[in-house]
């Protein structure tokens, strides 16, 4: 029976000088993964960051990530490239109309407490420019 494919978000950190390898190409060609890049900053001779969704079977994703790690790339499954600081947030809600995926939304409309759903964030960064309290910041 064929394994079912799923999608998961990953945050990759590239140490200096590992940035010239066509890693994404290999993920697609050799590991049969579908790649959806949200945001990337990969510059030769500098540290790099890549935030992407990988879609594939559990086996293919595990093998693909194993390949990625051979380049000393750190794979973070919990983290994304956008930081939301709950302490700085005053729950004004100014970010809501600017967030296209409702990653930032009220928990409920009565108490109007803002919450951040990292899984829904596509890293458009519009909250970074729109939060008056600098509660949203980009890691890179």
């Amino acid at each position, binding site marked *: 029976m064929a394994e079912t494919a799923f999608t998961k978000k990953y945050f990759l950190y590239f140490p200096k000088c590992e940035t010239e390898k066509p890693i994404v190409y290999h993920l697609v060609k050799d590991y049969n993964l579908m790649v959806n890049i949200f945001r990337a900053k990969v510059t030769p001779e500098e540290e790099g960051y890549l935030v992407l969704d990988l879609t594939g079977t559990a086996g293919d994703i595990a093998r693909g990530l194993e390949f990625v790690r051979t380049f000393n790339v750190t794979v973070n499954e919990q983290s994304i490239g956008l930081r939301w600081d709950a302490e700085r947030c*005053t*729950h*004004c*809600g*100014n*970010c*809501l*109309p*600017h967030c296209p995926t409702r990653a930032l939304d009220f928990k409920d*409309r009565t*108490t*109007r*407490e*803002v919450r951040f759903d990292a899984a829904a964030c596509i890293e458009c960064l519009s909250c970074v*420019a*729109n939060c*008056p*309290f*600098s509660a949203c910041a980009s890691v890179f």
Partner: protein
Amino acid sequence: MKTYEEINAKIEAKKAVVLTAEEIIDYVEKKGLRAAAEEVDVVTTATFGPMCSSGCFLNFGHSSPRIRISEAWLDDVRAYCGIAAVDVYLGATELRQGDPANLYHPGEFRFGGAHVIEKLVRGEKVQLFGLSYGTDCYPRREIRTWFTLKDLNQAIMTNPRNCYQNYNVAVNSSDRTIYTYLGQLKPGLKNATYCSAGQLSPLLNDPFYETIGVGTRVWLAGAQGIVYGEGTQHAGAVDRGGNGVPVEGGGTLALTADMKEMDPRWVRAVSLTGYGVSLSLGVGIPIPVLNKEILKRAAVRDRDILATVVDYATDYPNRTGKTLGRVTYEELRSGEISLGGKKVEAGSLSSYRYALEIAELLKAEIEAGRFTVSRPVRRLPVDRSFRPLAIKESERYG
């Protein structure tokens, strides 16, 4: 029906019945106005939003040898020194020296007077750099030192325009994004921004300034402060709805309190992309239930408070006077308003969540007998309208 003295006697005996401006709505509906007015002593109102007209007077004390200080920078933010020796006024919107402002539009406005104020209230160290011209009594001509809030003799927040009674809802009809003090407005009426706590906001609960006036004790960011005057741009003579509540700006309050007693949670610097720096502040004001008319007005609800929608692409900057209609705070708080049949997403710069928390905190203070209500020494004017600025030709050269 009740006097200030009777209400304060109950507060001091810890027997006062206090409800927030949100709780009072259902309470009045359930009990009826007359019974509720007899039972309830105080309604607490609150707001937390950017209040640009904020600042503080600081007194540094004297160094040896003394300096008058005629120019001063606090963490590189210019403070006003045209007052007595070692006194300065730091304004919230003042930018840091060298900030490119909107030279590269939209500017980020990362740091200004509000950030210095926030740092001070958090107890952090701030740099003072001062210059002077030197006098026989104040010979020193330059000073650089570091201080915290504790080191100052006085740090008095003095805000000439806070607590706007009501405010515009901003939209943008143009085909480009614009950056305003009401945040980023996307083209083609894609979003709307408002800035009021609506049914919780102090002057929306006391629309004719019957209990909130000069001398009223207020909760300002955790400190007990006072209303020291009508705020700048106070204009009671504005369009009002059937319930007497203004549907546009209306009244404002001038507030003051000791910064040393403030809680940093409620003093928060604001950076508005493409506009500038501001300061968000928590304000709580108790309304004594002197009679059932006052209670009726304090039980106002979002669906009965209107705000005027204004196009910030053309009408606001050019002061055309044109408006795009009116919406209720109930609609605004739903996150979507309707403008000429078009659905527009609405966001707020004022935090209802924080306002609610402040109303609860003030309620707890009053219930514990620590915060009494005060009779205003002077009422705020209800009949004054807003004057525009005429651009006149010089009489001599015109």
